[in-house]
């Protein structure tokens, strides 16, 4: 039992939340509500996947919101839309994903070769991509007329949109990459002890660039799916993605100091956060107090699920 608590703290926290909300609210434990939770979790989960690799390597990426907004704008002006005349059809998707990869790779390259902390490089990249989104923004709000994209959010199979299925598929791929590829294994090792890897002749920089690029790709995908969901191109579409995603990773046990956690843990973190938001509304908490309760629960959940790790000789930061 105590072993279970130790290894599965976040999972237990999630179960606890679900049980509590189910008891205090009729509507929480319904099929429709679970579907709503999954829909709400999908896009944050995609962002968290990208972020997890970066965090495992003990770096951080703050450019999430900018990249997602930029992706959303690029998508909306290159597919059939109500404002511009360009229409490259579904080719817009690889185009946008490449833009995301490129932004991520640039952040990493600047951080590595100019020797600047990723926190500050990606902060600059955040501002820069927000600015680029504003630059590309046409005069009016572009409506997405490409139905093959908007259907992703509208078309439902077994009560869930394609966005959810796409996310699930991506999670499986990410889990496989984490476990079976050299990149996945080395990412965690980089977080734990980078100097030894450098001494062992591992091309650490390549793995770092790959992680940031993949992360950028994930944020861009999130931007595309946001576009599918809201049906327009908006420079503000990515706003609000960053902190929940980081909080989710940390909640799941992916430490900012690197070397620990993983995709599975981060996904549990996303579910904790989304169920919490959903549950608090269901049990009728004053919306003004919502963020206060969320904050308190984040602290309690992390403290509770890592309580067994407490040691006198431990770096916390």
């Amino acid at each position, binding site marked *: 039992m105590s072993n279970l608590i130790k290894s599965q703290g976040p999972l237990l926290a999630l179960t606890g939340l679900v049980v509590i909300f189910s008891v205090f609210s009729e509507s929480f434990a319904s099929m429709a509500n679970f579907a709503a939770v999954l829909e709400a979790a999908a896009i944050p989960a995609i962002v968290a996947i990208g972020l997890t690799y970066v965090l495992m390597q*003990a770096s951080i990426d703050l450019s999430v919101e900018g990249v997602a907004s930029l992706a959303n704008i690029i998508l909306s002006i290159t597919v059939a839309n109500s404002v511009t005349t360009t229409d490259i059809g579904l080719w817009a998707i690889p185009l946008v994903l490449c833009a995301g990869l490129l932004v991520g790779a640039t952040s990493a390259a600047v951080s590595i070769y100019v*020797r600047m902390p*990723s926190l500050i490089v990606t902060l600059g990249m955040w501002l820069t991509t927000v600015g680029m989104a504003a630059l590309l923004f046409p005069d009016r709000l572009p409506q997405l007329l490409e139905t093959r994209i908007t259907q992703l959010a509208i078309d439902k199979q077994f009560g869930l949109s394609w966005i959810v299925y796409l996310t699930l598929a991506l999670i499986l791929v990410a889990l496989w990459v984490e476990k079976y590829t050299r990149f996945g294994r080395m990412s965690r090792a980089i977080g734990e002890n980078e100097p030894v890897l450098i001494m062992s002749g591992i091309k650490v920089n390549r793995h770092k660039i790959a992680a940031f690029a993949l992360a950028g790709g994930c944020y861009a995908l999130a931007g595309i799916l946001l576009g599918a969901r809201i049906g327009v191109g908006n420079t503000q579409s990515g706003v609000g993605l960053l902190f929940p995603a980081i909080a989710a990773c940390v909640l799941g046990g992916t430490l900012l100091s690197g070397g620990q956690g993983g995709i599975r843990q981060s996904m549990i973190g996303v579910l904790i956060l989304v169920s919490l938001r959903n549950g608090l509304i269901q049990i009728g908490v*004053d919306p003004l107090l919502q963020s206060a309760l969320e904050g308190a629960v*984040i602290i309690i959940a992390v403290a509770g699920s890592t309580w067994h790790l407490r040691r006198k000789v431990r770096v916390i930061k």
Partner: protein
Amino acid sequence: MTKDTILMFLRRNGALVVLAIILTAVSTAAPGILRWRAINSLLQDNAPLLIMIVGATLPILLGCLDLSIAAMASLAAVMAAMLSPALGSASAYVVVAGAAMIGGLQGWMIGRLQVPSFVISLGALGIFKGIGMYLTAADMVGIAPGISVYETLGSRSFGISNAFILVLIVAWLFTLMLKLSNLGRNIYAFGANEIAVYISGVRRDMVRAFAFAASSGCAALGGVMMISQTMFASATVANSLLLPALVGVVVGGTAISGGVGGVLSSLIGGLIAILIRVGVTISGLPPESQDVAFGITILIAVALTTDRAKIGLVK
């Protein structure tokens, strides 16, 4: 002077040099900006941001991060406004002292609960924001008129903004503390290797509590400065200041990994960031590209001000 010593000077005083360059650039582009009145109102407007930058430096020197400062500044503004009819000037003191205590509690909890500062302060951010919203019902709160503290903070002595003078005094006190006291030594050493410092007998929980008390207290002071200028508070007044504050600290050359930097350099970093903003605004660039220009210029500034010889691994 040999080439080496010049390089050394540039490396040590990168922030000052960058400040000089930007000041020259901005004033060449717009000579009006160098007029005393313009500078003074710039400093007055930005005093809340600058005091937050000064405070935020201390946790970062430990290698921690305090994400709650902007939310704390907003909450402090709200509290001070609400308390001002009843307490008068004391409302400002009570709020700043209370904030310092709450900050201290945050710092202490990091060690006790062994939860990273990032998480604790992220949670605190949510808590402060929620309380502020609840107290104000998401509305504006006015401050009672004619209270001396707020009037003083909003006015000038010898032609200089009082708020900015207060920023300088606080920054100077912190600098003395860091340079001359045992606590200051412990803060730098803590940032370099927490465990070894603990085993050397340093009270790490106290050091952390102090740093977070300082950052929270300064944030609250920033909130008080804000309402003394606007006479109104809302639960979100200062929320947009979190990132500019962190940017200021880093532009000043304080390493995010801890152990390197200082309060005065952060202050200079803050001024650099403010001037870059001004420069970008008057540059005549279309408004849409100003963010891009700001982002890139900030990156260049950081690249120039960071003393890479002192930081080990870059993460």
